[in-house]
């Protein structure tokens, strides 16, 4: 009898526990403020070392029913000596808990990037709420918070618009690619090198009005977010911006490009356009003397002819062969531009050191401490092959008789 009573009481105590598993940490959805993007700026004083701006989604404005016609996102700025202090400072200004689980974009200002970004990454990988998948950008020549406070056309949430822009440029004709938190951390740890991070800036001058819905009311928005340029780092410090051929070559070496256009100039004037839709670049190392390694860049590409206004006989394999040869030269030019820029910046963000480490770990150990010098005068050879698979829907182009 006594046992039964004890048992009954025990069950009464245990049952509610089973019903409440996991509730201890619950925060109701309507008490959360979902942060979609974070801008990280450097303040002027030590107490404002970190200036974080959180782009918070105003859920009511997105779903529509109860919307008041205000901005769909709000920006809260906090400052502090550490990232965490700045977060706490910003949290005190909001009515809801800042929820960092859905941060899609982190924008770091150029000023900060030039001073070094190592310290701010620690909290991003340590905190269990934040995700390694958040994309990192460097705001080119302007404060990061301006990027986070620019209204965009294609998404109510500017951070999402930025992500979509990156996806679009990375798929078509652009040299930017997804660069997440862990990619950057791994990049910083490359001996003698560093990460490459996407640049972002506003086209058209940014004014406070760019952050208003009114900015979108005209056909031509006042300022447009643009994902372009690559920020090249040495360790955790920004060294320079890559554009044009150097940027393209860098991405080719990282094998992160889907397709891109290449133009060939005709001697009679005018251009040929090609679309390179398949590109594979690999590095081979010959390191009998690790102090003077010889790298062979192997390029295999497939191209499609897009524009050919000249009366060339495009049905002849010989003509296409000649065009291929010129495309090969073009590809080599891209990579050469990338390599010479990297040597100028004194940073091996292209991954040559890692290729040596994979091939010859012992030799790598001998040169790793002065890899910058070895990299600066290492020899690079090319072994390229480009095939023009087809000329699309027509063979020869039409001419005026």
């Amino acid at each position, binding site marked *: 009898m006594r046992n039964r009573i004890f048992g009954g009481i025990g069950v009464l105590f*245990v049952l509610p*526990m*089973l019903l409440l*598993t*996991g509730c*201890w*940490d619950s925060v109701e959805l309507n008490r959360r403020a979902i942060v979609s993007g974070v801008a990280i700026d450097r303040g002027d004083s030590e107490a404002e070392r970190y200036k974080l701006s959180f782009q918070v989604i105003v859920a009511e404005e997105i779903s529509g029913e109860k919307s008041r016609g205000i901005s769909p996102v709000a920006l809260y700025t906090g400052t502090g000596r550490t990232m965490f202090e700045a977060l706490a400072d910003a949290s005190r200004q909001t009515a809801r808990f800042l929820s960092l*689980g859905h941060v899609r974009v982190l924008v770091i200002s150029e000023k900060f990037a030039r001073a070094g970004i190592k310290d701010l990454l620690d909290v991003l*990988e340590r905190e*269990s709420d934040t*995700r*390694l*998948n958040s994309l990192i950008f460097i705001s080119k020549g302007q404060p990061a918070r301006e990027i986070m406070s620019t209204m965009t056309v294609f998404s109510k949430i500017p951070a999402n618009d930025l*992500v979509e822009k990156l996806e679009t440029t990375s798929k078509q004709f652009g040299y930017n690619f997804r660069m*997440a938190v*862990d990619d950057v*951390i*791994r990049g910083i*740890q490359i001996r003698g090198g560093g990460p490459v991070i996407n640049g972002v800036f506003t086209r058209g001058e940014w004014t406070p009005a760019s952050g208003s819905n009114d900015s979108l009311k005209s056909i031509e928005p006042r300022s447009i977010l643009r994902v372009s340029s690559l920020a090249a780092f040495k360790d955790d410090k920004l060294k320079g911006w890559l554009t044009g051929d150097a940027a393209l070559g860098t991405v080719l070496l990282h094998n992160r490009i889907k397709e891109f256009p290449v133009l060939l100039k005709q001697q009679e004037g005018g251009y040929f356009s090609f679309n390179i839709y398949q590109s594979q670049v690999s590095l081979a190392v010959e390191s009998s003397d690790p102090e003077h390694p010889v790298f062979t860049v192997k390029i295999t590409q497939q191209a499609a002819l897009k524009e050919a206004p000249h009366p060339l006989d495009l049905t002849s394999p010989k003509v296409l062969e000649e065009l291929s040869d010129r495309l090969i030269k073009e590809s080599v030019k891209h990579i050469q531009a990338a390599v010479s820029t990297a040597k100028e910046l004194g940073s091996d963000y292209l991954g040559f050191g*890692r290729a040596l*480490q*994979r*091939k010859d*770990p012992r030799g790598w150990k001998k040169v790793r401490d002065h890899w910058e010098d070895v990299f600066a005068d290492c020899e690079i050879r090319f072994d390229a092959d480009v095939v023009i698979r087809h000329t699309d829907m027509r063979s020869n182009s039409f001419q005026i008789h």
Partner: protein
Amino acid sequence: MGKVKIGLVEFFSLTVLFELGTALVVNLGMGAGRDAWLSILLGCAAGLMMFTGYAYLYRKHPNQPFTAYTRQILGKYIGAPVGLVYIILYINLAARDLRDGSTMLAMATMHNTPLFILSALMLLSGAYVLHKGVEVLSRTSMVFAFVVLGIGLFGTVMLILSGTINLHRLLPVLENGFQPVLRSVIHQNYMFPFGEMVCFTMLMPYLSSVKKGPWIIAAAMVFSALLLSFTMALNVSVLGADIVERSPLPLMPTISKISISDIIQRVDIFVVMVLIIGVFFKMAVFFAAALIGISDLFKIPYRKMLYPCALIILFTSMLDARSFIEHLDEGGTLLYRVYPYLMIVVPALLVIVTAVRDHFSAPRPG
């Protein structure tokens, strides 16, 4: 004792879940850097050698648990204290696993939930299953083995489709020679999780087939070693050796890299499930081993000691260390300095004594 028999398939899945346990989610063998997968395989080979010893003892005493045949082999006055030491070992191991599990849960998701509540809930569920009996535990393991393997398959396929796997990160193999791998094996991998198989000496009397049983368990060990090795290789190829080395729960960030068109993402809750399932089975097996030992040594019915023993495990796990760092440090020391005696030296002595005695007492022809 010995009346209930457990089928071979159930034993296989119980062994697999026991081996995967916490080892699947932690940074196992990362002392060897990006060659962790190799050190796990070597650890398994060493573990199998130890297991042949346990299997030999089992074949000689198919109906007795470890604590019973120590008394038979070493005599009452040495054998009983040795048995008692093993009971304490199992309670300690169960408590350590409970602490591992509850702290990792607190680190990963439930930041504000008191550790005691997490531990108590996990332990109570284990105690409940053991109240139903070891055969229920083994059958439960079949269900959950499918869940864990399913999650593993899903995670792997999704990671491949997300395009985050870069096999270059596993290269170069053996960058610093063979030494770091061997050191990692000696410091950790042959003991954790393979040496912990010593507790199966308490459960093997339940095996339904004396002949096939040890083979099935050995096969389960190899299978789980392959899974663990694969998982660590996966972690390294997704995150890179350095991030894995610095993460206490590397599987979590690995799985969080899954993102397919931004639709399928944030599936890291699966890792939390794997963690809970693993800790549950590992702890329950140690718990069961301790209970079987107590009931055998002190002749107390198995169920009577269930809740007292649960309380001891719960409080051991809470009082074991102030912080997780202290707990891990302690674990490393135990793994290297204490467990080898209990998992290798004592069983080896028993094997030698049994073999020598057999050799001399066997009837000789002529």
